[in-house]
C-alpha cells in the first residue's frame, strides 16, 4: 500500500518533504494516515518537547546529572517510533532519543525514574540519564561510547534474518557518530548480509562544537549508503510526516527481505549539546532564532490546524495534562526510598559470584 504510493527514490539530492513550512501537504502521493494517528504523532512531539524542558529544570535543580536536549530532533524520532512495530521490532537509539522512546510507549514514570536514579528505576539507578532502555519495549539500553550500539544493532538484525522472525531493527545516531569505525564496520556488515535494519542518522551538523564540514568530506551522510550496497535517503528532518513515510517504507522493505537502508534526517539542535556545554561559544543567537522558525512542531501544528484537527484550546489542554502527568510521576518518585547501596553488587553476573558475595559482605561491614 504505502510503498506502492510513494516509492521513494534513493540518493535524492534534495531532502524529501511532504509538508510545506506553512503546513500544506505537498507530496505527490495521498496522505494515508487517519486523523487519530496524525494527532497522536503531534502529541508525541509536543510531549517530548515538554519533557526536554522538564529535563533541563531537573538537571538545574540537581535531580539529574546530565541532559542532552532533543528539541529540534523530535520529527525523525517520533516518526521512527511510529514506523516500527512496538514490542516486535527492536530499537537501538542514541542518547538524544527520548522523543523516540516516549512515542514508542515508555511511560513518563519509567523515564523519570531512570533519569533521576530512583528506586523505581528498572535499570536500578545504575545507568546515567539520556540512556533509556527497556526489555519489554525491545529498546537496547543506551551506550555512552559514540556509535558503539550500531554493531550490536546489526547483530540483532542478522539474527532476525537467520531465524526468519519477520522483525526489523532501527538504530539511530548523530552525524558525528558516522566518523567512528564502529559505524562503518557495522553498516558494511549489514550490507553484506542484507540485514533487516534501518540506519537513521539525525544530522544536526554538529558534534558538540565540531561542524559537519570538519567531520567528513562527504556532502551528505545518505550518499555513503551507496558504498555499502544499500539505498540512502535524504529527508527533511523537520517534517515529521516525511520522516514517517520514508522510515516506514524502509522498515517494510527490511521486513520484506529487501535489506538495510540508511536515512539521513536533516535536523537542527535547538539546545546546547548537553548540560555540560555552553553553545554560545560556537554559535550565535541569530543562528538559533533562524533555526527555531523551522520548528518541526510548529509545522505539524499548522498542518493539523488546516485540517481542523487542532486548536489553541486543544493545545492548552494537552500541555496541562502532560505537565500534570510529569508532576504526578515526580510526586511518586519523591515518595520512593533511596536505592539500597548493596544493589550495586547484583547483576554484575547472572549470579552473585563468591568473590563478589565476599566483597558485598565486607562492604556491609
Amino acid at each position, binding site marked *: 500500500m504505502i510503498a506502492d504510493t510513494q516509492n521513494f527514490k534513493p540518493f535524492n539530492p534534495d531532502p524529501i518533504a511532504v509538508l510545506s513550512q506553512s503546513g500544506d501537504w505537498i507530496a505527490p502521493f495521498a496522505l494515508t494516515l487517519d486523523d487519530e494517528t496524525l494527532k497522536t504523532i503531534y502529541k508525541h512531539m509536543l510531549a517530548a518537547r515538554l519533557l526536554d524542558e522538564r529535563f533541563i529544570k531537573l538537571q538545574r535543580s540537581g535531580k539529574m546529572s*546530565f541532559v542532552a536536549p532533543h528539541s529540534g530532533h523530535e520529527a525523525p524520532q517520533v516518526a521512527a517510533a511510529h514506523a516500527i512495530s512496538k514490542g516486535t521490532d527492536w530499537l537501538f537509539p542514541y542518547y538524544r532519543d527520548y522523543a523516540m522512546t516516549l512515542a514508542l510507549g515508555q511511560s513518563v514514570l519509567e523515564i523519570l525514574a531512570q533519569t533521576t536514579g530512583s528506586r523505581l528505576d528498572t535499570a536500578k539507578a*545504575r545507568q546515567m540519564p539520556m*540512556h533509556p532502555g527497556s526489555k519489554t519495549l525491545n529498546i537496547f539500553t543506551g551506550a555512552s561510547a*559514540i556509535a558503539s550500539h550500531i554493531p550490536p544493532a546489526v547483530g540483532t538484525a542478522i539474527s532476525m534474518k537467520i531465524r526468519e522472525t519477520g522483525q526489523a531493527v532501527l538504530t539511530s545516531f548523530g552525524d558525528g*557518530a558516522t566518523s567512528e569505525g564502529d559505524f562503518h564496520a557495522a553498516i558494511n556488515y549489514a550490507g553484506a548480509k542484507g540485514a533487516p535494519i534501518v540506519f537513521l542518522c539525525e544530522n544536526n551538523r554538529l558534534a*558538540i562544537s*565540531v561542524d559537519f564540514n570538519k567531520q567528513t568530506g562527504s556532502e551528505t551522510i545518505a550518499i555513503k549508503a551507496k558504498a555499502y550496497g544499500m539505498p540512502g535517503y535524504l529527508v527533511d528532518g523537520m517534517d515529521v510526516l516525511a520522516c514517517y513515510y520514508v522510515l516506514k517504507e524502509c522498515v517494510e522493505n527490511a521486513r520484506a527481505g529487501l535489506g538495510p537502508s540508511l536515512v539521513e534526517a536533516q535536523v537542527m539542535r535547538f539546545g546546547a549539546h548537553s548540560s555540560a556545554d555552553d553553545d554560545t561559544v560556537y554559535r550565535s543567537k541569530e543562528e538559533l532564532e533562524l533555526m527555531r522558525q523551522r520548528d518541526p512542531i510548529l509545522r505539524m501544528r499548522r498542518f493539523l490546524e488546516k485540517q481542523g484537527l487542532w486548536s489553541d484550546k486543544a493545545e492548552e489542554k494537552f500541555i496541562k495534562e502532560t505537565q500534570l502527568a510529569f508532576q504526578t510521576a515526580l510526586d511518586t518518585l519523591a515518595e520512593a526510598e533511596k536505592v539500597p547501596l548493596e544493589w550495586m553488587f547484583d547483576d*554484575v553476573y547472572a549470579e552473585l559470584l563468591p568473590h563478589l558475595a565476599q566483597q558485598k559482605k565486607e562492604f556491609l561491614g
Partner: protein
Amino acid sequence: MSTATLVKTSYREAVRAAIREAMKRDNRVFLMGEDVGEYGGCYAVSMGLLEEFGPERIRDTPLSESAFVGAGIGAALGGMRPIVEVMTVNFSLLALDQILNTAATLLHMSGGQFNVPIVIRMATGAGRQLAAQHSHSLEGWYAHIPGIKVLAPGTVEDARGMLWPALQDPDPVLIFENAALYNMEAEMPGEFKDFDISKAKIRRAGSDLSLISYGGSLGKTLAAAEELAKVGISAEVLDLRSLRPLDTETIMDSVRRTNRAVIVDEGWRTGSLAAEVMASIMEQAFYDLDAPVGRVCSEEVPIPYAKHMEEAAIPQIPKIVAAAKEVLNAHV
C-alpha cells in the same frame, strides 16, 4: 624558586600553561582531539589556544579516537611532537589497538628503528554521576603494557610540569588527568626546570604506615592522613606519579621505615595497580613488614549512576582511615 613569583593556578590552567609553553618552545608540538579548538576541550583545558596558535596546531578532529590517535602516531613518525587529547579514558578504548598494538610495540618490533614520541592525555575517574561507561579508571590497566610510560599528575604542580618532559621522551607517554582535579588550585612558580617525572614523591612524612596513592585518590589519601593524625597515627603519604615504570626504590624506602602500607587506587581490586604495588612490596620488602599490606580500591562493579551509590563504590576518606587502622592493628 622565589615566593614572589607564586601565582594561584588551577589544575586545568596548569595543563593549559604546559601546552602553551610546549607549543612555544617547539614548533613541532601540536594538539589534536575532539572539540579542542573553538570549544576549548571538553574540560576547557585548551580554551583560548586556537586563537593563539591557529587551527593546524590546535586541531579539531573527526569523532574517531582510533583515527586521531593513530594519526598522532603517524605524525610522531613524521617528525612532529603530537599531544593527542582523548576526551576520557573511556573513549580511549576505541583507540586501544593503536595504543597497545602500534604505539607500544613499534620500536621493539622494528628492531629499534621507529620511535613513537607521542603524548596522549586523557581524563579519568568517576565522581560526576555519569555511570559506568563514563567513569572508568583504567590507568592501572594501561600501566600493564610494556612500551608505554604512564603518568598520573595528582597535583597542580605535576599537571604543569609533566608535559614537557613527556614530550622530550622518545617513547609514547600517556598522561591521566583525573577529572575531579581540574578545579583544584595551588600556588605555583612561574617557571619549571629539570622536572623529574620518574620519581615517586613523599607528600606527607610519617612514621607509622605508608599510604601509597596517585592521581584522583591522592587528595583523599592526604585527607585520611590528616584524620589519622588527629588520633595520634602518623601516616606517610606517597604519590606514585609515574605508574609505569614504578619507582619501587622510593616505595621500598618508605615501607622499610614505616613497616606497614596501604595502597589507595580507584581501579578495581583484582589485577589492579594496587595489586602490582603490593606484589612488589612482597618481593622486595617482605621482611620489613609488620602486617599484611592493605588496599582500598573501587568495588568490583560497573560504577553506578545514583550519587550515593557512586560515592560508595569508589575509595573515600573513611574507607582509607579504616584500612589504615586495620593494618595498624594487625600483627604478624
